[in-house]
């Protein structure tokens, strides 16, 4: 589905990513992990076409991509759930969902029942403004909004950040269901270790813009991965 190699990225004078390789396959969740400020979000921004890369190759559906724009990526089938959710605050929930119609042919522009089945709260709140929703509701809306575009690759940036546990569990079930459908590749940026370990099929750990650990779940041990992540924070214990 997606295969990117040797990605580099600069913001102004500083280099954020140093030669990252990442792949995503249908029916699998690839987790990108690491502490704050290591470049996870930048990597996702790059893949979503929101920031130009300074080097590296990206292949999507077997096609090499040169310059990416966010709207071209969206139309090609990349759904994006940003960190902080980026709900359109003055649009209603329904309108927020409808923004994704831009990716669909006119005849298919409707909100499927599936969406409301997965996130019943959105059906209840359909006519409320996005900005009035709680954080957890906004997160569900952000995921639903990305699903409206019928993506084949879904990019999720810290969907559990600042969300209460029961909603996290629900989000986890939705992601698992999407994965199990088998036709969608998912890249999940996550700091919540248990959540990521549960869902992930492959892992990539970043530190200061470099991959320090990478591989499928079968090749990794939970303890090693956890130690690698928490190592810096808890080494003194």
């Amino acid at each position: 589905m997606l295969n990117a190699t040797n990605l580099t990225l600069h913001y102004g004078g500083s280099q954020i990513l140093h030669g990252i390789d990442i792949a995503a396959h249908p029916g699998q969740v690839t987790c990108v992990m690491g502490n704050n400020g290591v470049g996870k979000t930048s990597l996702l921004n790059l893949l979503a076409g929101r920031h130009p890369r300074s080097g590296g190759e990206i292949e999507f559906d077997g096609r090499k991509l040169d310059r990416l724009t966010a709207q071209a990526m969206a139309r090609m089938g990349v759904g994006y759930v940003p960190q902080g959710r980026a709900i359109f605050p003055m649009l209603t929930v329904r309108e927020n969902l409808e923004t994704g119609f831009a990716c669909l042919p006119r005849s298919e522009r409707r909100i499927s029942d599936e969406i409301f089945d997965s996130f019943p709260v959105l059906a209840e709140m359909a006519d409320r403004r996005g900005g009035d929703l709680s954080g957890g509701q906004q997160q569900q809306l952000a995921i639903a909004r990305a699903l409206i575009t019928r993506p084949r690759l879904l990019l999720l940036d810290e969907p559990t950040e600042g969300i209460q546990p029961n909603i996290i569990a629900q989000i986890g079930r939705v992601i698992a269901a999407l994965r199990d459908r088998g036709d969608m590749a998912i890249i999940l940026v996550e700091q919540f270790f248990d959540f990521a370990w549960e869902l992930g099929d492959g892992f990539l750990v970043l530190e200061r813009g470099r991959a320090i650990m990478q591989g499928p779940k079968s090749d990794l041990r939970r303890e090693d991965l956890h130690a690698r992540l928490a190592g810096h924070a808890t080494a003194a214990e």
Partner: protein
Amino acid sequence: MSALLEVSGVSVSFDGFRAINNLSFNIGAAELRAVIGPNGAGKTTFMDIVTGKTRPDEGDVRWGEYSRSLLKMNEAQIARAGIGRKFQRPTVFEDQSVADNMTMALRANRNPFSVLGWRPSPSSDQRVAELAAEVGLAGQVNRKAGELSHGQKQWLEIGMLLAQEPRLLLVDEPAAGMTLAEREQTTTLLRRLAETRAVVVVEHDMDFVRRLNCKVTVLHQGSVLAEGSLDHVTRNPQVIEVYLGR
């Protein structure tokens, strides 16, 4: 020891979202403090309130020996009172030389007419040279700030802060975008600075905070979640829950 800065019961909301929620925070006259917390914990808003950029909805912020309220002062007055702020992204005046940038920051009367009458003197030139040397820009004083590397700009900004001779330094993510060597230099400098004044560092790179080796305040959802040594707070189960590993 009485506190240099005393933040008590401060709250502020944007669009019904509570960015800061009943926050209280003290810092002494010569102290190094790290403030950590996940995104959206209110770290930047906290700095905005102390420096006068954002007015809190309730609470009080008091400063100095006479406990003056900072809430009645504007940004410039607060800066003149002795609070310096380093921004996350280096903001130096790219169009002007390193020396000009530093000269502007030098402690001197700030009113327009005094500035008009200000003339460079041997002592001001020397002060600029000293500061440039201190932040590793000795050979660069006549270069335009815009030509400096990202790390050098961060250094220049720190130099400008030093030129202001503040009693409290607020530093927002100094390590972002720095190389390993630059980080080490920065930690050393911050620790040295904290010997004579208060320094508050907002950072979420744990490694960096560890090297600062100081008291840590953990913010979460706009209030203080834990405070103490790094080891102490990293053992706090709530801190682990919201920030560290989960």
